[in-house]
């Protein structure tokens, strides 16, 4: 299987050179292959969210190299990184991060609109994706009319919009009760079985025990499961 994500000696330091310098990630080496489902876990402050942001091109490493689909993206400009996020990364957040003034359907269309895909195509694909996450009946509802589990399913549909290389989930079940959490996790497993690659940051032991590859972080270092 081919590697779609490769991290080489990634280091992240905040406030570099100042008295409050803080090293969050230290010498991270990691390879993720297509179709894998990987969890990152560790105590808070271990750097797992920062690592996810770096893999997702929301943040840049201070040192080291990040390859996505074999391309070194660690030195790209902000706009180039935006294009990588748009075309190759899908995000799922703990807070769902839907746009409140958009309906479920419009939220799923949004990444495609940003990519200048034509209106009809956007609509058609967004409808298909909402069907895939079992929300066909809720397409015209606004986020405040949806339950937490439903909002997270909209977010998953949105993450899939531009056929990403990898889907990054930051505590996707953290704001959900255990029943809804399980449904979301089952959905992610279903998508994984269809070939989507997932990297999930989680505290949820139910998820952690079901996933084969677990990577533990502590104080910015990988301490287990590489």
């Amino acid at each position, binding site marked *: 299987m081919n590697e779609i994500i490769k991290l080489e000696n990634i280091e992240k330091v905040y406030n570099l050179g100042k008295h409050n310098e803080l090293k969050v990630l230290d010498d991270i080496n990691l390879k993720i292959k297509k179709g894998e489902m990987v969890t990152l876990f560790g105590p808070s402050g271990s750097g797992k969210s920062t690592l996810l942001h770096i893999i997702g091109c*929301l943040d840049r490493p201070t040192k080291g190299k990040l390859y996505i689909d074999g391309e070194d993206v660690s030195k790209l400009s902000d*706009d180039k990184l935006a294009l990588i*996020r748009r075309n190759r990364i899908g*995000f799922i957040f703990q807070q769902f*991060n839907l746009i*409140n*003034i958009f309906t479920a359907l419009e939220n799923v269309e949004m*990444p495609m609109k940003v990519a200048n895909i034509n209106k009809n195509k956007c609509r058609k694909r967004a409808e298909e994706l909402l069907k895939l996450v079992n929300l066909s009946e809720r397409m015209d509802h606004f986020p405040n009319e949806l339950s937490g589990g439903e909002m997270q399913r909209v977010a998953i549909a949105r993450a899939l919009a531009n056929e990403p290389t990898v889907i990054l989930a930051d505590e996707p079940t953290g704001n959900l009760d255990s029943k809804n959490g399980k449904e979301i996790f089952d959905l992610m497993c279903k998508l994984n079985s269809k070939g989507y690659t997932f990297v999930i940051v989680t505290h949820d032991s139910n998820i952690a025990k079901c996933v084969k590859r677990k990577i533990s972080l502590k104080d910015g270092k990988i301490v287990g499961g590489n």
Partner: protein
Amino acid sequence: MRQRTRTLLTIIGILIGIAAVIALGSISEGMKSMMNEEMQFLGGTIMVTSTGSSGILMGGGGSEILKYDLANFEDFSGVKQVVPYVMKMGEIRIGQGPPEEIIGIRPDDIDFFKSRGTDIDSGRGVESGDTYQTLIGYQYAENNDLGIGDTIEVKRSSFEVVGIIEKTDSNIDNAIILPLDTMMDVYNMENYQSAFIIPEDLSRIQDLADNLKDSFDDFEFTTSNDIVKQMSRIMDMISIFTLGISSIAAIVGGLGVMNTMIMSVLERKREIGIMKAVGATKKYILTQILLESVIISFIGGILGLLVGGVGSYSLRFISSGLADAKVTINLAVGGLSFAVLLGFVGGFYPAWSASKLDPIEAIRFE
């Protein structure tokens, strides 16, 4: 809802600014075209008024020329023709617009007026030997429902309408032209009010005016060039004044746009962060916000154009054509472009700061 109210207020702000630009600009344009009409009329002549009168631009009120002086002008070397006249305002009647102007000219001089764009629409001009005959302006005829052969009364004397002057869009439209001698009789006047002097050689008009000034201390001789200079000075002042006032109004509107867009960006910080996280580029965010700002201003501009246009039309209507206001294509296009420019300038800073938002931080923002 709060956002909608704010947007509406912003549109009203731009509306007021652009309406001011259009209304004041149209007055300035109207005055220009009115002055141009006058200039055409005065071209190639020297105006004579007595020293101490209110001067040409104010209509020569209080000026007096004796018959004896007139003969002297006629004999002066280089003078081809002297055209004296008297002028009175009619009675002010409430609700009927400005009073008519009653102008007395020698019937023999009618060709002088005809050659300056005051042609006869129907009937004939006043002729040699006419006494109680009159020529009336187009608007005056229409307002009073007068035709050839009807009679009008001036100072308790009846005059027969023999001709109607074609529409000129100047004060002549509302005038009554009487034979000079009859008018002076009726009004009990001894002297002429002022006169036009036509030079033999048009290219030496300024020399003639200077010579006349040297020879006659009691009179002022103003060439059309002098008047052009005075008028353009006044026009410039009016233009600067109207442009200044309306620009201030419009810039205040532009600040309103900026304020609204800054607030709107702050409120949508999270949304913008999410869009950036899922891959919106700086350019995309910048374009979206700028577009919104320009659309708000454009709508304000269109409404301002309408309100300003209605305002300028009502001004003409209320003053019954005395004050002219013209909304030219240039003015309309200029006003709209200004609105769009305001939207662009006012929206640029908020759009630029939105485009630079750090997605991680913006998403954390609640």
